[in-house]
């Protein structure tokens, strides 16, 4: 029921007034006028009176009074039939209601501070409409009800146009029975019955969509759509309800027109001179009820926005004062400041220099680890990696590079052969899960004939890398002769298993830092103890813990590619690893890696970069150009991928991709960084800055 000035504070739905009184014990007004076209408002009236609130009048639009009106009159309440609200009056809120009988035999202003309006119930067809059902009109209740279901849903009760309790219980019981039956639940043989309730006669109702006034009357309170807006829409030619809806935004707010749609349709129907079923309804959209964003977020906020993955040695790093960094879901130590005053830059420099001088230890548990079994394991790895693994001897490890199907580099890692039919593979931290599903796909879909099995072993084993000239001495002291780590017993790229305090342990002689280095794996539960054992034993050799930053500095000094270079746009050849591509076997990515554009000599190639003025710093992301005064995307010859302030070289160094870079060692280009107005002249060099012969690995 749309009344003039119904935006004045104090004009409320009759059912809302009742809820305030019944449920919350709050009186919405001291003098509440009730206007209605059905019986429901009488229930509100009785509640108000029993709560001691004055009801000066009930204006009932129906021409004759029924039992409810008689009862109200018996209680001494004034009931006017065939009577409509004309407008709400008042300044800051309701102070009067102007009533009018249809034959104008009565026009009266009645003082009140609240108006309870009841225009009848509109079945909530939003959900069935969302499921695709077009609601159908029922003249007896002046509302839309669901048509036959399209999906496996059923409507029961008020949303189905059944408003009395006995009817709701009956329909609900039957719908529940049918649903249970459809879900395959075996129903008891003895048929039950719906709970009983006193039957009540259905309420009569007359159509009152718009009060007789001509002022401002809101239809959709949420989207500020008035009765005049709908008339205007019609005059503008929006005769279809779909057009009218979009023109006026009627029913498009988060309430999806729960109280406004049927009034709006009726007003449009009146303007068109049609009946309501001819005009029809629009499709209701979610939300069915407004949903708080917090409900969608649920648990996933703060530290649980993503789960956190912790190493077995996490508490040790905390104790050592590590500053952590997120690498994927893992938390890894970034660096270990010795005190509050040590800056990150100084700590990184100290750690990187310290490893090369004496020894350092680093938690490498986060690397993806995959165990591969089976008579075809060797063949499987041969197809995954660009280089060969079939002839890898038991007890040896090898660096492997894999491509995507499109020929670009996907991931790298070191894979060891533990037995003839048993390999232990490692992946980068970032790609661990991706590589495993890549393998699953190829094993299940592409090559189901291969007899191979594999699974993640990332968390079974935790790993510590010990690197530096004193690495062997540190471990000898820590392991107390449990394993012979001499060059003869454990040569570079060798792998051995041994028993460490009752635990199965594995030692790999591999190096990311370019120093003499070992990686030791023990089962998760031994990780903390192993770290502490090595750390204590290492003190007499000046062993230090180092984090991901120092790890990064040292790998840049050695020209090892990592995430910044494995950017999904680079080929093995771009990285200077083209010679690893086996010509004796097929592997994933081989055919597409031979496309013309992929094999182009002029593609950007991995190079080392040194500032000519060694005091200048380099920046990752800088572009490489011939002429700093003509630097733009057309003249860019490549870019800087990784930079480090290198203790070993004594200046900033960088890795980058440069067109034809492998043929330009010794020449100069300029690294421009327009964001900071910087340009640095750099010399192109071998990406392996430190110990290019690899002597230190074999010490």
């Amino acid at each position, binding site marked *: 029921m749309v009344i003039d000035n119904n935006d004045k504070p104090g004009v409320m739905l009759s059912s809302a007034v009742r809820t305030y009184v019944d449920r919350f014990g709050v009186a919405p007004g001291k003098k509440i006028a009730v206007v209605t076209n059905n019986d429901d408002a009488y229930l509100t009236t009785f509640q108000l009176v029993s709560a001691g609130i004055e009801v000066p009048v009930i204006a009932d639009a129906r021409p004759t009074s029924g039992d409810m009106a008689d009862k109200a009159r018996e209680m001494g309440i004034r009931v006017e039939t065939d009577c409509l609200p004309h407008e709400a009056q008042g300044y800051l809120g309701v102070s009067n209601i102007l009533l009018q009988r249809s034959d104008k035999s009565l026009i009266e202003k009645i003082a009140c501070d609240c108006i309870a309006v009841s225009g009848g119930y509109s079945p909530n067809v939003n959900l069935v409409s969302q499921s695709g059902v077009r609601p159908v009109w029922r003249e007896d209740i002046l509302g839309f009800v669901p048509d036959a279901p399209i999906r496996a849903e059923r409507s029961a009760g008020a949303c189905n146009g059944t408003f009395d309790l006995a009817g709701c219980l009956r329909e609900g019981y039957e719908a529940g029975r049918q649903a249970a039956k459809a879900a395959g*639940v075996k129903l008891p043989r003895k048929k039950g019955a719906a709970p009983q309730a006193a039957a009540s006669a259905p309420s009569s109702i007359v159509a009152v969509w718009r009060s007789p006034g001509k002022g401002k009357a809101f239809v959709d309170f949420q989207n500020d759509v008035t009765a005049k807006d709908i008339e205007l829409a019609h005059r503008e030619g929006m005769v279809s309800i779909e057009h009218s809806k979009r023109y006026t935004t009627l029913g498009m707010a988060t309430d999806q027109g729960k109280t406004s749609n049927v009034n709006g349709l009726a007003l449009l129907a009146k303007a068109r001179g049609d009946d309501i079923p001819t005009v029809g309804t629009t499709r209701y959209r979610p939300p069915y009820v407004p949903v708080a964003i917090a409900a969608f977020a*649920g*648990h*996933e906020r703060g*530290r*649980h926005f*993503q*789960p*956190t*993955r*912790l*190493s*077995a040695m996490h*508490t040790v790093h905390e104790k050592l004062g590590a500053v952590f960094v997120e690498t994927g*879901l*893992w938390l890894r130590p970034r660096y270990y400041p010795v005190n509050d005053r040590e800056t990150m830059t100084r700590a990184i420099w100290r750690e990187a220099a310290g490893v090369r001088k004496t020894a350092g230890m680093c938690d490498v548990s986060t690397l993806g680890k995959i*165990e591969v*079994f*089976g*008579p075809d394991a060797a063949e499987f790895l041969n197809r995954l990696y660009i280089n060969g693994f079939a002839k890898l001897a038991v007890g040896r490890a090898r660096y492997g590079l894999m491509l995507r199907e499109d020929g670009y580099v996907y991931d790298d890692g070191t894979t060891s052969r533990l037995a003839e*039919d*048993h390999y232990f593979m490692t992946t980068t931290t970032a790609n661990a899960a991706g590589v495993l599903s890549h393998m699953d796909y190829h094993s299940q879909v592409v090559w189901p004939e291969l*007899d191979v*099995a594999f*699974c*993640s*072993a*990332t*968390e*079974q*084993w935790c790993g510590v890398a010990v690197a530096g000239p004193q690495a062997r001495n540190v471990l000898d002291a820590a392991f*107390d002769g449990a394993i012979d780590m001499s060059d003869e017993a454990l040569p570079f790229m060798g792998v051995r298993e041994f028993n460490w*305090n*009752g*635990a*199965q342990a594995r030692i790999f002689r591999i190096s990311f830092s370019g120093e003499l280095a070992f990686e030791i794996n023990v*089962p*998760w*539960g*031994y*990780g*903390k*103890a192993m770290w*502490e*054992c090595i750390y204590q034993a290492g003190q007499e050799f000046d062993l230090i813990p180092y984090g991901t930053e120092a790890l990064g500095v040292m790998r840049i000094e050695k020209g090892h590619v990592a995430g910044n270079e494995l950017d999904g746009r680079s080929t093995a050849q771009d990285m200077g690893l083209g010679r690893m591509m086996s010509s004796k076997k097929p592997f994933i990515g081989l055919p597409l890696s031979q496309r013309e554009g992929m094999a182009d000599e002029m593609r950007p190639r991995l190079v080392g970069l040194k500032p000519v003025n060694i005091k200048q710093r380099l920046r990752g992301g800088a572009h490489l150009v011939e002429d700093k005064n003509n630097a733009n995307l057309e003249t860019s010859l490549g870019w800087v991928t990784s930079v480090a302030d290198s203790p070993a070289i004594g200046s900033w160094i960088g890795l980058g991709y440069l067109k034809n870079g492998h043929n330009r060692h010794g020449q100069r280009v300029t690294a421009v960084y327009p964001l900071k107005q910087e340009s640095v002249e750099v010399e192109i060099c071998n990406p392996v800055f430190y110990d290019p012969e690899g002597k230190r690995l074999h010490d």
Partner: protein
Amino acid sequence: MTEFSILNPLSHLGLHEGKETSRADVILRDRRGLGIAQIFAKKGKTAALAKKLGISAKPRTATVLEDYTALPLSPGQWMLFADGGADGSFKQMLEERIGKIGYVSEQSHSRAIIRISGRKCLDVLAKECRLDLHGDVATTGFCAQTNMAKIGVLMHKVDDAPTFDLVGFAGFADSFWHWIRQASAEYNVEAFSESGGEK
């Protein structure tokens, strides 16, 4: 070498063994020290392997034996759990039993196992679990791999109480535990550790 203890993924919580009170709506148990192994049948040997170990090859169906519990992961793959044997002896026993028809991957340290029970346990699980855990669908022995709180979980319905085992990667254990504590915070929750035996 100084004395040290073998840690469990949730050791840092400082839980103790114990029995729940009658007030508990949700009971959580960190099951420690279990021997865990992932086993694989060689090509064409799935039925033979299942028979040799006395376990079911049916999907979503756990086999609970005196020596171990087997949860199927995919055709020809199971995760096996035993009381004790985390020192590698469970894996070794399986290797000897299986012989040449399959492979065993040692996983004893790789997982945290949280057992959840109590009258409100289904309400807690319903907050993140997308599986239908209604007793008519998920009967005792039901198992499945799913994702809860963005963490991969292998789930096993242990009994009709109901009791569930939730198996997740060790690295995520702290995060998962934090979620499950938050999800049960509205109820009376009691948490304990439970030793898997001293084998």
